[in-house]
């Protein structure tokens, strides 16, 4: 049950049969989330895609995230993985710390948190600003652009490549690999496996190179040299590189794209940001809430009952942070974007021990990319709202999003 054909077919009742890859759900998931959230069955279950639970209320999603002992992160992809045998020497490579459980989770996370602290990511602000300006230079004279492929898609991949010390010229290849894992590959296991192996082979070569030629101020070298403090293995370092590429590109790209899609349709919000630059940090949190890109999975460790749902060991739970962030029990007027929203306890970056390690970098990229866009292109609109295409399932955001200015 891993292909589009096997899982196609109309959804009559989303509480018992939801389909996260249904084209309508991919485009606009919020009405379905609301239907489930307000039903008698706010934690839906579907047999599609290997079977999964789908909590839609804020309190339930947060409670599951906090119970990391029962709801483990041994697999965080929203569909079942391919057979390990097909991955050969890379079968054991995960994506620590996102795929780690305690006790290893502690040091898996401890090692990478310092590079993502707010004061650490601040050093990427100017280079990100320069990158955004260079991208806009290429299309500003044309009077139109694809805010998705010409802009949003181009930014996080280069920031992450810079952080990892790998060639930014390979941005298109990295993007293709990541889409192969997180988008196309979720409904096409062959593409997913091929893309995963490309990523791991690439980073294995990078590790081998660093061992022969250690570099100064280099994340991969530093991780390889952390063995005096923690039981670091190649497999761990390979997994961290895998995570940074896979989790650091599609996600932030989607947040930037959704925000531009929103701003293209809301001149009053563009004006509000121009008139009040102090609003930016609050506005970024609101855009993250309203257009949270990421859904993660958890795997149930042992049979348990949660909110009346009989969950079995091995069951998959889809942690719909997008649904949680639109719950009216937690947010007033949840479907409205209110850029100066005062109370915003959103969980776009998750909750508990797996809070997105890259959240501060994502915020920086989102803010800078939107600021530069609005400085250079203050007025813009969608060329054809119906022609905007979306990715969904694990990461939700626009892909083709043509605008004129």
């Amino acid at each position, binding site marked *: 049950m891993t292909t589009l054909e096997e899982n196609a077919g109309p959804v009559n009742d989303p509480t018992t049969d939801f389909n996260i890859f249904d084209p309508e759900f991919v485009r606009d998931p919020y009405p379905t989330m609301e239907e489930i959230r307000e039903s008698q069955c706010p934690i839906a279950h579907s047999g599609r895609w290997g079977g999964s639970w789908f909590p839609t209320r804020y309190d339930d999603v*947060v409670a599951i995230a906090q119970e990391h002992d029962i709801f483990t992160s041994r697999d965080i992809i929203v569909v079942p993985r391919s057979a390990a045998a097909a991955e050969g020497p890379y079968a054991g490579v995960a994506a620590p710390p996102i795929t780690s459980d305690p006790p290893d989770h502690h040091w898996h996370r*401890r090692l990478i*948190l*310092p590079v*993502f*602290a*707010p*004061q*650490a990511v601040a050093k990427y602000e100017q280079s990100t600003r320069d990158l955004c300006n260079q991208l806009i230079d290429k299309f500003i004279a044309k009077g139109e652009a694809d805010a998705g492929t010409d802009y949003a898609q181009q930014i996080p991949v280069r920031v992450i490549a810079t952080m990892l010390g790998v060639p930014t010229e390979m941005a298109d290849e990295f993007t293709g690999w990541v889409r192969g894992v997180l988008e196309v590959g979720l409904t096409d296991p062959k593409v997913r496996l091929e893309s995963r192996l490309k990523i791991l082979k690439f980073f294995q070569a990078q590790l081998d190179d660093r061992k022969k030629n250690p570099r100064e101020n280099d994340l991969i070298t530093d991780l390889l040299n952390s063995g005096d403090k923690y039981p670091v293995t190649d497999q761990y370092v390979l997994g961290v590189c895998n995570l940074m590429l896979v989790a650091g590109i599609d996600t932030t790209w989607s947040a930037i794209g959704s925000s531009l899609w929103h701003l293209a349709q809301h001149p009053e919000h563009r004006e509000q940001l121009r008139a009040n630059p102090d609003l930016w*940090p*609050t506005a970024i*949190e609101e855009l993250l809430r309203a257009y949270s890109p990421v859904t993660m999975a958890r795997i149930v460790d042992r049979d348990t009952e949660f909110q009346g749902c009989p969950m079995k060991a091995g069951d998959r739970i889809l942690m719909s942070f997008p649904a949680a962030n639109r719950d009216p029990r937690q947010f007033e007027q949840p479907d409205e974007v209110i850029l100066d929203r*005062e*109370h*915003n*306890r*959103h*969980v776009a*970056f998750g*909750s*508990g*021990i797996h*809070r997105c390690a890259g*959240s*501060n970098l994502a*915020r920086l990229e989102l803010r800078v990319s939107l600021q530069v866009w609005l400085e250079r292109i203050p007025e813009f609109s969608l060329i054809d709202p119906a022609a905007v295409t979306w990715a969904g399932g694990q990461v939700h955001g626009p892909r083709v999003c043509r605008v004129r200015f």
Partner: protein
Amino acid sequence: MRVRVDEASCQGQQMCSIAAPEVFGSDELGHATVLIVGDLPVELHAKTRRAQANCPEDAIIIEE
């Protein structure tokens, strides 16, 4: 009003430093720190309450 961060609960969401940058900072791991020792100036009380309300981990403890 005084404020502290429950280190066991804080996961480094940084929502507090966004709501009240004068009151909250970040340690080497990106977890929250309190920048003001002792009583908070009255003009920062509202912001600090907002920081508490916005913390998804319930890690901000206010003592009045």
